[in-house]
Each structure stands twice: as structure tokens, then as C-alpha cells.
């Protein structure tokens, strides 16, 4: 970890309009994350954790406030700029493993590489990552032939194949048993420690949260505590 702030968020609001009702998903979030940090985010369901990720990950735009990732201001981005940002700057891992079902693990990763526009052949560095993830010999299987833990590790490989500045993992162990959860969490910690990958991870599990350097607590669209 070094002293560059890779994420700077202040007074961030996000309001969804559902019919005629305004849903205030985020009500003034302030957060800074340093490059190389592994941050856990906890909080009750509906407290706005995923929404925060969607904004940091440029899947949607904030209603008000500032959100700067790297040197890019997310609050004033066009659709095309957000698309570019998703390509290279962030990588997502979701609770549902979200692999493309008709493609092998290898092709799932290749698709991300293709979209990201990076070299078609994996770098030696990435081959090392695959070994680290323990899926190097499972790459020619389709998702339904992989265990949940394996699928999630393929999803992690896919998320970091374009070397994103930030890895966003939204409840990555939410669908996994204890055994598989531990493998995935250890993989994340390894990625953070060995490659200096900045990671933000949402979790419901207090034990999982301890894998991060620090934990942010959210409630009702705000950050209430950082430990």
C-alpha cells in the first residue's frame, strides 16, 4: 500500500426513481481508498453497498457529489467514457458468478481480454495468476462443469485480466460454502499482497471482512464507521 488515493468520494448521493417514488440509495457518502488497499464493506441489506460499487465501477452515474477514481471524475462522464472506464480501470466480481454459460472458462477470460483490447495471448504474469487461483487445469470446462468456488475464481481471473486499477467484489463468497469461501478469500488476499491489487469487497460475513486491511460500515446510504 502506498499513499496515493485511488478513490476519492465526497458527499455522494444516488437517488433512483421508481415510478413516482424516489429511492435514496446513497445519502452523502465520503470515502477515500489508497492504492494497494484491501477494503471490506459491510452493512445491512439495502444500505447502498452495491450502489456504491456500481458508481465506482462506472455502471451508473451519481446523482450528486464527487467521485474520482484514478484521475477520472465519474460525476461528469459520458456513456462512452464510462464504457472505456469499465474496460480498463475496474474489474467486477459478483455474488452470482456471472460467467457466460456457453463459453469455457478460458473463453470467458478471452472475451474480457478481447473487449478490453489487451493482447490476445495471456502474459506470463497472468499465467502466474491462473496458477495462483488454482484453475490453470480447469480452463477448458464450461461453467456448469465447475464447482462454485472454481467458477468464482474464473470470474476473478476474468475481472483482473486487463489489469484494472481496482477490483470490486460484491459478496464474492455469498453463494459459497465455508471451504470454497476460504479459498476465494485467500486468493483475493494473495492478489492484494503479491500483486498489489487494490480490492474493495462487500460481504455479509464478519469473518470474511477480516481479510481486508480495514472495514467500512454502511447504514441507510451512509458510511457510519470505519474500523
Amino acid at each position, binding site marked *: 500500500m502506498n499513499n496515493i488515493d485511488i478513490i476519492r468520494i465526497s458527499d455522494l448521493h444516488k437517488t433512483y426513481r421508481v415510478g413516482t417514488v424516489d429511492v435514496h440509495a446513497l445519502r452523502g457518502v465520503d470515502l477515500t481508498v489508497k492504492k494497494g488497499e484491501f477494503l471490506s464493506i459491510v452493512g445491512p441489506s439495502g444500505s447502498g453497498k452495491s450502489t456504491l460499487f456500481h458508481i465506482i465501477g462506472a455502471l451508473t452515474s451519481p446523482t450528486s457529489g464527487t467521485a474520482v477514481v484514478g484521475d477520472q471524475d465519474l460525476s461528469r462522464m459520458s*456513456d462512452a467514457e464510462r*464504457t472505456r*472506464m*469499465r474496460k*480498463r480501470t475496474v474489474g467486477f466480481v459478483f455474488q452470482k458468478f*456471472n460467467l*457466460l454459460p456457453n463459453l469455457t472458462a478460458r473463453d470467458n477470460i478471452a472475451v474480457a481480454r478481447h*473487449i478490453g483490447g489487451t493482447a490476445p495471448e495471456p502474459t506470463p504474469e497472468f499465467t502466474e495468476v491462473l496458477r495462483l487461483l488454482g484453475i490453470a487445469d480447469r480452463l477448458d470446462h464450461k461453467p456448469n462443469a465447475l464447482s462454485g468456488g472454481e467458477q468464482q475464481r474464473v470470474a476473478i481471473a476474468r475481472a483482473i485480466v486487463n489489469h484494472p486499477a481496482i477490483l470490486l467484489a460484491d459478496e464474492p463468497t455469498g453463494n459459497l460454502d465455508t471451504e470454497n469461501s476460504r479459498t476465494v478469500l485467500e486468493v483475493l488476499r494473495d492478489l492484494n499482497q503479491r500483486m498489489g491489487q487494490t480490492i474493495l469487497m462487500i460481504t455479509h460475513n464478519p469473518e470474511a471482512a477480516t481479510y481486508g486491511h480495514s472495514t467500512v460500515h454502511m447504514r441507510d446510504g451512509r458510511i457510519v464507521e470505519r474500523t
Partner: protein
Amino acid sequence: MRSLLSVLLIGVPVTLILCLVGLSHGFIEDSQKRNLGIGADLLVRPKGSSFLSLNGAPMREEFVALIAKQPHVQLATGVYNQTAEGVTLGAAGIDYDQFAKMSGGFTFVSGGRFARPDDIILDEFYATQTKKKVGDTIELLKSKWHVSGIMEGGKLAHIVVPLKTLQTRNDNPNHISQVFVKLDDPKQVTAVIKNLHELLGDDVPIQSMDDFISLLNVNNIPALAGFIAVVMGIGVVIGFLVVSLSMYMAVLQRTREIGILKSLGASKGFILGIILSEALCLGIAGTVSGIGLTYGAAALIHALKPATLPMIMVYEWWLYAGAITIVGALLGALYPGLTAASHDPIEALSYE
């Protein structure tokens, strides 16, 4: 499964177009060949008749003798045309000896020339189609005939009968449909036509066989071009609708996958590109299946009605039919594709 069904559905109008084109070209080619086989240099038709007139005999038979006496005319013979089945299959009443002299005679596969007034000669195609052989009785042109010979095809008509008998049975003695003329010197065609016009009147259609045969082309078949255009229009619409529905369902089914691609940074253009390429594949596969179905249809037609429906493959129309189909498919994919491209990735990812 859905794709397979779409491909077949898209193939149907392709087949329709190709069969229609194949039948019209086949019919034209068949008539050209049969007319060339006559061995005539000139053709004299009744006043006011169209080049496609296949029926009726309004011309008086005396003309034949008159024409035969003209300079450079070596031989003239009258023929009585009557449609036998639909508009595509006709029978011809001939004066056997004169016609044989002009054309070099028929090549018989079995049997031979007329011996009885009610004799009939069929070509191989029609004999196959009707499963008749020499000696059989065949009911045709509203009466019974006795098959005296089966000939190779390609001369005048698929069915020939004695001129006199046909005239009598039609209650139209001494009348014919047209006169074929053979010259002693084919270079004299223009001069002879001029002379015959003076003799018979300017309004009597007289043509060299070459001119007449060049009139026998697909563009001259009335209403055919319009009909093909309509079928092609239907092809575009079906391609459009099938692909549109199929792609729309595909997009709904794959909402989540589209969300995944978007979260990986896929642009709108990328998503649209995927949908359009799939439509392109459907269009191409549909065309190919349509061509396959056309071969099936052609085989069936050749087996059942080789004489009535002489169908051929017109390869250049594969391109036209394919292009039309692919355009329809791409247009059909445009709306589903744009819908997919503008999916909100967050909603798409939470889609079950």
C-alpha cells in the same frame, strides 16, 4: 432449437423465389429448345396473336400452300396448338411427313410414326410423367388416343398428334395456329418476310425463328416480373419478422449475459455487432436451407411432372434471394439489437 426453426422459416420464401424463377426459366428454356428443334427459318402467326399464344387455331389452312409457293420457300407446314395441362404443357397437331421433312424427323425411343388417325406421339418426359408406353391408350385433349411412339424430347412439343384428327375433334376443320417456314437459303429471311407481308398484309406477325426465340424470355412473360417482386417482398418481410422475433427473444433470454458483457466494458456498438452478426448468420443459414429445399422441390418436380413443369436451377438468383433475405434479417435484428445495446447493465445483471 429456436435458431433452427428460424433458419427453416427464413428458408421458405427463398425456396419460393428460387422455385418460381427456376420454373419460369425452365419453361422458357424448354420452349426455346423445342422451337429450335423445328428446323424452321420463319414463323407466320395469326393476326393479333401474342407470341405466347398456345391455344386456338384461327388461321385458314390455305395459307400454307400459298406460302409454300413463294420464292426461296422450300417448305411450309401448319401446326395446330392446343394446351393439354395448365398453360405450360401444350400438344401440337402436325402434318407428319411435312414436319418430319422440316425437322429431320423425330428420334423414337420406342414405337414410331402415326399409323391410325387417333395415334399420338409422346416425348420421354411426358411418357414418364404419365407412365405410358407404346400401345397404351391415353385420355388427353378431351378424347382418347392410342400411343404409337415415344420420342426424345426437344422438338416442337411434348405431345404431337395428327393435324387432321385434332382439327376434326375440335370441330375446326382446315384451320391451324401457325405456319412454320423453311427457306432454301436462310440469308433470304428479310426478303421473304417482306414478300410475305405484301402477300398476307402488314398486320400479320411474321418473324424469323431467331427473333421469335429471343422473344421467349422471362422478361416477356406477362405479370411474372411483378409476381416475383411480390414474392421477394414477402421474403423480405418474413425474414424481417422471423429474425426480429427470434432476436428479440434471444435478447430477452440473454439479458443477463448482455449485462455481463457491459460490466466488462462492452460498448453499445459491440453488443449491436453481436446481434447483427447473429442475424447475418441466420440470414445466410436461411438462404442455404432455402437452396437445399429448392433442390428437394426440384427433385420432386422432376420425378412427378418433368414435362409440365420443366424446372432448372438458376444460380445467379441464389445471390439475389440471399441478398434480399440477409437485408431482411439485418433490418429485423436492428430493433432487438438496439434494445440490447441500450440495456441498463445494473438492471440486466439483476435480471433473473
